[in-house]
């Protein structure tokens, strides 16, 4: 408001040529001319939600850490991830990274290698980041049943808020599906162990070999009791001992094939097969191995079988497009030479002396979409054929164990009933992860684990939970791509095919620091101001004022021309009608 303070300027009188200025210049200061009054639209700094952030089931602030990463502020970047996901070294390896599918850069050249950068930061943090200390101590004891990603995440955030947390794990080692279901070549056990050390350093107690009474056999246990020892403790006992219980026991029960002969020797669930390998065993599966299914378990089982020296073959009843497995993993399986037969379904296991010798299959075709939206496979008449196999690994889905919950815990037909905050409707009883959602992904379990922790804390401290925000997502059409050079995505170094043979060495080798920084620099920073100065440089009225870490408009003089909004490379400025602003 400089112009208000100034005296009205005296306008000189021009009588003769010598009174005139040398050129066409205003006779007084132009500050008196408050050109802002001409404005009918005004620019406002208005960050949008980057699509990667919007898509992340864990709610990671991806654009934010890519920005920090670009500035080589690794620790800050790591700590920003930890606000929503405590275990980026895990998701950086096994997440299906929907963020990259949403990345606007894919329209320009290739999406940012967010997954690979996350892994870099996760590994950086494991070796360099200090363990945080809770600011307060709370008396409310929390028991988490299950030590998979949902339980781990809830444990981390609750411990951070000062709650004493005890995790119960039926198996001999913690990690749930991360340990038992995911092969070493994707997630080395050392990484998982280090994340558990981090949890324990924060004060989380982990009780392994602790099965809740009535809990069915877990993964890796063909029969009850072959895994961890039963603790004899019931859900009711736990509810007496702990003020808060969080069910996070996952979905570990494999669906059966449901065809004649399935009890034959040599038929094994893929999950069980993976668990045995993960527990250090080397199951004998022979040479010709059928893997039934199209999900991640099928791919993991087939690639693991290959590493044991077998010749696995994936049989899936739909087509590539309907495969629920992560596309990258399918790609790797094909690269490793594993054949996938589409549109085939088993009808009978063929046995000899109680052992598998082959399978009878039917050709399928795709019919009308089913409730999942995918086209339902229907058998082709008279198309049955036989293939010879030494063993069959089934991977057609997992189910939740509901048998041990007790009458008080609400269930739907196939899972624990809870809202997105993990609230079951029973006081002090929460649930998160696959046991609520059915078999989903690690990152979804992490997101739900965090929300459940938040809900528990909100309940204890009597706060309300935040409303779900509906932010506008930054669209590719609003990115000003003239400001970006095409640059291809940094490839992830990987073991060559020869080096993968007969071992479970990690396939992907991780970005070098420079690669991670350069890859981060490709980020458009969609919808989020990253202080590029374009608005400041372009404003023809010098009405963009620089503040420490941001900008402000001088609306006394901004004419609302919109050049700043137009030239913003990343859609962080919005033009709004002047009358809406008032």
């Amino acid at each position, binding site marked *: 408001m400089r112009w208000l303070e100034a005296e009205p300027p005296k306008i000189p009188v021009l009588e003769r040529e010598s009174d005139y200025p040398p050129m*066409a*210049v205003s006779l007084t200061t132009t500050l008196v001319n408050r050109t802002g009054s001409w404005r009918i639209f005004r620019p406002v700094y208005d960050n949008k939600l980057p699509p990667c952030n919007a898509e992340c089931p864990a709610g990671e602030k991806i654009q934010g850490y890519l920005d920090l990463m670009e500035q080589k502020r690794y620790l800050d970047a790591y700590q920003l991830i930890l606000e929503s996901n405590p275990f980026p070294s895990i998701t950086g390896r096994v997440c299906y990274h929907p963020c990259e599918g949403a990345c606007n850069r894919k329209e320009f050249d290739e999406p940012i290698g967010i997954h690979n950068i996350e892994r870099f930061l996760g590994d950086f943090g494991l070796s360099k980041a200090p363990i945080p200390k809770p600011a307060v101590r709370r008396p409310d004891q929390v028991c988490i049943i299950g030590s998979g990603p949902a339980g781990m995440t809830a444990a981390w955030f609750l411990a951070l808020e000062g709650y004493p947390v005890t995790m119960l794990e039926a198996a001999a080692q913690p990690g749930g599906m991360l340990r038992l279901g995911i092969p070493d070549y994707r997630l080395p056990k050392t990484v998982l162990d280090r994340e558990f050390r981090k949890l324990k350093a924060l004060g989380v107690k982990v009780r392994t070999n602790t099965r809740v009474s009535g809990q069915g056999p877990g993964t890796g246990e063909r029969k009850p009791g072959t895994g961890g020892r039963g603790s004899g403790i019931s859900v009711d006992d736990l509810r007496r001992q702990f003020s808060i219980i969080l069910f996070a026991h996952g979905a570990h029960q494999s669906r059966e094939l449901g065809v004649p002969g399935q009890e034959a020797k040599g038929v094994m669930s893929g999950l069980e097969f993976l668990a045995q390998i993960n527990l250090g065993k080397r199951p004998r599966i022979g040479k010709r191995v059928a893997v039934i299914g199209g999900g991640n378990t099928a791919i993991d089982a087939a690639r693991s079988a290959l590493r044991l020296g077998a010749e696995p073959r994936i049989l899936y009843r739909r087509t590539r497009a309907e495969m629920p497995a992560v596309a990258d993993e399918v790609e790797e399986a094909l690269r490793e030479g594993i054949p996938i037969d589409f549109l085939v379904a088993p009808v009978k296991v063929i046995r000899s002396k109680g052992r598998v010798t082959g399978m009878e299959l039917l050709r399928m075709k795709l019919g009308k979409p089913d409730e999942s939206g995918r086209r339902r496979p229907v058998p082709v008449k008279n198309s049955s054929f036989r293939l010879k196999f030494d063993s069959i690994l089934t991977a057609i889905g997992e189910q939740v164990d509901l048998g041990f919950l007790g009458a008080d815990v609400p269930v739907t037909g196939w899972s624990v009933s809870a809202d997105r905050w993990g609230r079951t409707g029973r006081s002090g009883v929460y649930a998160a992860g696959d046991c609520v959602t059915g078999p989903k992904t690690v990152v979804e379990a992490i997101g739900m684990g965090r929300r459940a922790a938040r809900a528990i804390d909100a309940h204890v401290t009597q706060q309300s939970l935040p409303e779900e925000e509906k932010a506008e997502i930054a669209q590719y059409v609003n990115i000003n791509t003239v400001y970006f050079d095409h640059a291809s995505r940094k490839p992830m170094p990987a073991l060559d095919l020869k080096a993968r043979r007969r071992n479970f060495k990690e396939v992907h080798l991780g970005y070098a620091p420079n690669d991670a920084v350069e890859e981060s620099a490709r980020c458009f920073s969609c919808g989020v101001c990253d202080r590029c100065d374009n608005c400041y440089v372009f404003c023809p009225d*010098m009405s963009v004022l620089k503040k420490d870490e941001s900008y402000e408009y001088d609306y006394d003089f901004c004419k609302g021309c919109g050049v700043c909004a137009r030239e913003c490379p990343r859609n962080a400025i919005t033009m709004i009608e002047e009358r809406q602003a008032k």
Partner: protein
Amino acid sequence: MKKVITGNHAVSFGAQCSRVQVISAYPITPQTQIVELLSEFCASGKLAAKFIKVESEHSAMAACVAASAAGTRAFTATSAQGLALMHEVLHWAAGARLPIVLADVNRAMGPGWSVWTDQSDSLSQRDTGWLQFYCESNQEVVDTCLISYRVAEQIMMPVMFVLDAFVLSHTSEGVDIPEMELCDQYLPPYKPELKLDLADPRSFGALSNPDHYYEIRYKMQKAHEQALPVVKQAHEEFARIFGRSYGMTESYRCEDAELVLVTTGTITGTARVVIDSERAKGRRVGLLKIRLFRPTPVAELKAALLKVPKVAIIDRNISFGHGGIWTQEIKSALYDEPVRPTIFSYIIGIGGRDVTPKDIQEIVDFTLASERPPAPIIWRGVRL
């Protein structure tokens, strides 16, 4: 420091010697090498200037206008269609009284598409308010850059200096690049009285109603009138500091001449050779080289030409529907004198066709042999 350099690089060194602060240019043959070298100077730190890349010559001049209005020494270079594209902003630079300096490498206008030299591009900018200097040698190019800034900043008008495409622009000569210390002595830093100032913002180039506009234009004419003594003084001071002298015009062996050739640009150098051989034969032929086009050095033209019976003006340009532009200018300058020389107007070398000593010799012979010009335009070398 002596260097063997092309005319284009002589311009670059001239700009460096002038410590220009903002350069904005768009590439065009035959000018491109000028700003190429300047961009290298900027990149390597040999010249503390901001190099602004733009998408057209119109924008290049607009950037220079803004830079100059902000109080910095601005420079650009162009040719032919590029200069024509700048036309609107050339008016603006002059009207806003901004002492921008522009190097124009004379190139014929298309079509037919040509990259070779003639003066139609620069001379057709006659009425924009810019001063123009025409150069004969690479040494003159370097020196004229410094002189241009000195004059421009004293009278607050833009200056264009001109060199012939290829004949100078791409031809190497020995050039003495002045010492920076001497350059600084000759050309002090640019400190305008009025410039863009955030503390006292003004509207520059604002709407001027009929009550105001007329006086502003009056002042522009006054500035051109004031320029004549300023140019003279700038040349004298240049000679004092650097020991090389030029003028608005230069008379070469004109004593007792019965014929004086009038030349500009590199044709002057060719003509000098012919004059020397004519004088050796005892013929009374001299040469007047003109360096300054706008303001017109009327007094110098009169002093050099009124005492001569015949004048042959060599124009490497044409104003269609009238004739050679230098001819019109000189005729107009001499008009109010009761006794005037007989003027022969030659058009030659359009679109870069070579102008050789033989051509000049034929002009001399023809003029001496003719009592009156046979036509308003005498075409040399056109295939009729």
